């Protein structure tokens, strides 16, 4: 396997939660795996297949990409961890399949910041071999809103949010869930008895109507009737973890580990995201950049935000518990990931 991983790897720091293919299968995400596998198999018979694998940070796209690398015959594997120079963009020629990881680094949200992405997409359009790419889904959604990036790909595979049951299966497969005792506390914390799913009904043309569909939170409602038993508390714990993590498996794992205290876990121990952290527009923009890139160096932020005191703003974000700085790199830790997302959603900065 030819691998041209860039200078700084994007491997998880200690404490971060990396998922394996076995975890995907345990969580019932076989369909996504099969989609990737069948696309790769079909690509051997077709030409010009371009695949985009999308997920939130920590949700497991790296494992899917590694799976693709293992499946392909002699692929060129490139991984970005910062905005690359023009000449470090991979050439797409011949018949060698290409796997490009972390394509969210191919653009900057600034004037002239899309030129590299345009060049890459242009090469992609003219390419013969299979190209598998991975993207941060928040960056992708933004790009799709302003440039319709999806049109450049024949297949997009988005890792879905996991339900409470899937989170439970995932934890069963990964963690020693028999270890902590499930205990109740006076208050379970905030729950929604009825949730609202949104179904998008396609109309003629590109129009779509958003139809809200109420969905009762059955795990929570059923727990009212089975009180103080491990089973009912357990289901509430998983439901709450799933809800707080917005179904993101990496965040769910981090929340699970964080919530266990003295060998016990209670629903009220699971932190609830606060959507309002009292940050200003500049700090929110910095947070968006960090979320979309996954991790970014302070130097890059300094160059990007020339008229802003980046260190001061990052300190405020760190004080609010939204980011951590590890040497030159800034990232959002797994546990407060939901809070950062909630803050940006509240400001309509996520698509």
């Amino acid at each position, binding site marked *: 396997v030819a691998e041209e991983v860039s200078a700084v790897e994007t491997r998880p720091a200690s404490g971060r939660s990396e998922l394996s293919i076995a975890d995907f299968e345990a969580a019932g995400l076989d369909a996504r795996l099969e989609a990737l596998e069948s696309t790769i198999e079909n690509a051997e018979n077709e030409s010009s297949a371009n695949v985009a694998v999308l997920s939130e940070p920590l949700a497991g796209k790296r494992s899917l990409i590694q799976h693709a690398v293992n499946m392909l015959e002699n692929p060129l594997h490139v991984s970005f961890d910062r905005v690359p120079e023009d000449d470090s963009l991979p050439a797409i020629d011949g018949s060698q399949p290409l796997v490009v990881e972390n394509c969210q680094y191919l653009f900057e949200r*600034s*004037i002239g910041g899309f030129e590299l992405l345009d060049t890459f997409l242009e090469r992609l359009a003219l390419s013969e071999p299979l190209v598998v790419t991975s993207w941060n889904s928040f960056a992708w959604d933004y790009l799709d809103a302003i440039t319709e990036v999806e049109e450049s790909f024949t297949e997009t595979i988005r890792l879905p949010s996991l339900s409470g049951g899937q989170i439970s299966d995932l934890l069963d497969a990964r963690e020693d869930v028999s270890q902590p005792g499930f205990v109740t506390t006076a208050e379970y914390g905030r729950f929604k008895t009825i949730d609202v799913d949104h179904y998008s009904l396609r109309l003629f043309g590109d129009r779509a109507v958003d139809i809200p569909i109420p969905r009762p939170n059955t795990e929570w409602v059923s727990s009212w009737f089975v009180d103080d038993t491990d089973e009912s508390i357990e289901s509430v714990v998983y439901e709450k973890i799933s809800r707080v993590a917005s179904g993101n498996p990496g965040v769910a794992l981090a929340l699970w580990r964080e919530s266990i205290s003295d060998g016990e876990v209670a629903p009220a121990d699971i932190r609830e995201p606060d959507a309002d952290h009292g940050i200003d527009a500049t700090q929110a923009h910095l947070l968006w950049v960090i979320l979309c890139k996954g991790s970014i160096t302070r130097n890059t932020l300094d160059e990007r935000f020339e008229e802003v005191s980046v260190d001061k703003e990052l300190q405020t974000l760190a004080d609010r518990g939204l980011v951590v700085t590890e040497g030159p790199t800034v990232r959002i830790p797994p546990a407060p990931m939901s809070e950062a997302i909630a803050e940006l959603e*509240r400001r309509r900065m996520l698509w």
Partner: protein
Amino acid sequence: MVIVLQSVFKQFLAPKLFTALLVLVSAYLLARVLGGVLSIVASRLATARFRVTTLIPLVKFVVYATATYLMVAFLFDFSSDQILAFSGLLGAALGFGLRDLIADLIGGLVIVTEQPYQIGDMVSVGEYYGEIQDIGLRSTKLLTWNDTLVSVPNFMLFNESVANANAGQAEMMVVVEFYVDTETPPGQARKIVSDAVVTSPFVYVTDDLPANVYVEDELYYRTIRARAYVTDLRHELDFKHDVSERVLDAFDEAGIESPRVPSELGSAPSAGV
């Protein structure tokens, strides 16, 4: 005679007046408290605040209408003939001193029911443009960009055109214009403005709410006009400032110049908003 009147006042009228006053004060306090609570809830909802702010004037009207009904019912025990006579009296009052006040109240009622605007909207009424802060029984309060609170009588709704920039939605279209020299390659200037608009942290772009940039060729200059939605109408000035600042810097870097107009024709518009 005076003693008899004082006795009647003390025995019958004073308690009724006191109770009516109590109802009025209670209604005022209740309306203030409910309005305050709803405002706090609305502020926590950020861009979804309009779902709550739309209720504030309605709640106030219900409270005041109930209070008025209770006061009238308590103070006066009208028969049908008396109601008829009172209607005549009311008509006369309308014709004279209370006409404007009643027009304001009816204007307020129309605002609550038809909702040509609601609290939080960006509205132009007459010569004023600003965010609606409160819709009262008699007047609407509007906060302009230079932090001036303007009270607009509700009856102006019947006499003036009201332009609502966002119609109860958080997002609002903002237009930013730049003027460049006719030598400027239009594609280059358009690309800079387009990039600046879609990369602004305040922009809101969807399939239904796209960002567009147009070039208009005039005799002595070219206009680059960007139209895009902001995530929240409160970011209108932030968006204009952010886009203008970055575009002007980029124009400088790219050597794009302001229009040059022959001096006999007067001053040219400068490259900018």
